[in-house]
């Protein structure tokens, strides 16, 4: 997580119409981490990867493939993952590829990493997932500033004798893309002098501007996430009773609570850390898993249901065994 934070107290000064309690009630967030000026997703990925290698003791030479999942990439070409191979010092005889996905990105990355390992292509995949989403949020957009933060997670998926990552349920519905998108400054909507002028007070919004239709996103989520969760349970011939912990993409506090209530998931099984970490896009699930493990909420052999959903629309879920 970047060092700089943005608290509800600070937001309440910027948006005096919202008290700190109201901000928390709307977002479920108390503190967000914010990337430094000019610090983008790949910079955070280098930090996250170095931390992983240091803490886990896994040698960099063991990595056979790197998947870098972010939507804000260094440049149109080459793939940021190639640049990361050099910056992190990963083997030259390893593969590297970008996955430009958002909220479902960790699930897609996990599926691809599992596929690479299970097909015997490689033994270890480094999966880097996260975003510097706050770069795309207009300073006056109180709704998005309350929910989103920046963060990056580094995960290694390794070959083992046990099948600890279960089957996946995935889905896509591109018809809803306009309801959650970064507009402007892309190949379809080229940056223009008008754009820069219109956004002058916001520094020109050179990374584009994230826009969200909250009601449509809520409807998409309520329609698709419970269905996906039921399907993944059926696929694994399990019921919610067999699941020790549920970790959803930390979309917003409100969304998570509505989903939990709709699916009747007991509170003690439903892990959230959005309060301190905010919505860090494709980093939320692995960071939440780490936090849950550190808090002693899972033990070896536990079944943990993971589900990501959002921008695209795109969604994916699986059940892992700790």
């Amino acid at each position, binding site marked *: 997580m970047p060092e700089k934070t943005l608290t509800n107290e600070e937001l309440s000064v910027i948006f005096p119409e919202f008290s700190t309690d109201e901000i928390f*009630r*709307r977002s479920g967030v108390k503190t967000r981490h914010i990337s430094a000026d000019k610090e983008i997703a790949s910079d955070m990925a280098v930090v996250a990867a170095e931390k992983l290698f240091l803490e886990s003791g896994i040698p960099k030479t063991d990595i056979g493939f790197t998947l870098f999942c972010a939507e804000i990439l260094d440049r149109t070409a080459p793939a940021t993952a190639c640049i990361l191979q050099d910056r992190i010092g990963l083997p030259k005889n390893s593969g590297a590829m970008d996955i430009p996905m958002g909220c479902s990105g960790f699930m897609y990355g996990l599926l691809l990493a599992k596929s690479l390992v299970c097909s015997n292509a490689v033994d270890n995949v480094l999966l880097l997932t996260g975003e510097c989403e706050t770069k795309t949020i207009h300073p006056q957009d109180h*709704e998005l500033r309350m929910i989103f933060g920046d963060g990056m997670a580094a995960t290694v998926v390794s070959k083992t004798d046990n099948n600890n990552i279960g089957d996946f349920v995935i889905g896509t519905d591109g018809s809803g893309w306009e309801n959650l998108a970064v507009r402007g400054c892309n190949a379809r909507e080229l940056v223009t002098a008008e754009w820069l002028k219109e956004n002058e007070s916001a520094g020109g919004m050179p990374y584009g501007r994230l826009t969200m239709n909250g*009601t449509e996103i*809520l*409807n998409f989520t*309520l329609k698709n996430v419970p269905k996906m969760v039921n399907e993944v349970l059926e696929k694994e011939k399990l019921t919610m009773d067999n699941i020790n912990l549920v970790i959803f993409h930390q979309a917003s506090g*409100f969304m998570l609570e*509505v989903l939990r209530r709709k699916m009747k998931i007991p509170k003690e099984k439903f892990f959230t850390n959005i309060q301190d970490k905010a919505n860090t896009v494709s980093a939320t699930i692995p960071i939440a898993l780490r936090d849950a493990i550190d808090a002693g909420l899972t033990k070896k052999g536990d079944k943990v249901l993971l589900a990501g959903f959002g921008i695209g629309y795109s969604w994916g879920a699986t059940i892992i065994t700790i």
Partner: protein
Amino acid sequence: MDINELIGKLQGEFEDIPPGTLKPESKISDIEGWGSMHALIVIALADTDYGVTIKGDELRKVQSVQELYDLIIEKQKNPSE
């Protein structure tokens, strides 16, 4: 369900709106502090408690609590709409 049940549920969800404020004839736009968050709460409630999907533009056309109730009933009768 009847409209009082809906009002009771809305009242329970809208922590910031004083009890007794909501009546069938209450104009939604006149509810003090009504905003985007309340729209999300109504949509979530319609889905989780009544099994119907209300789109954002449909909710924007709803003028009163009575009309919201009628919309939910209509959608329950015609799930495809």
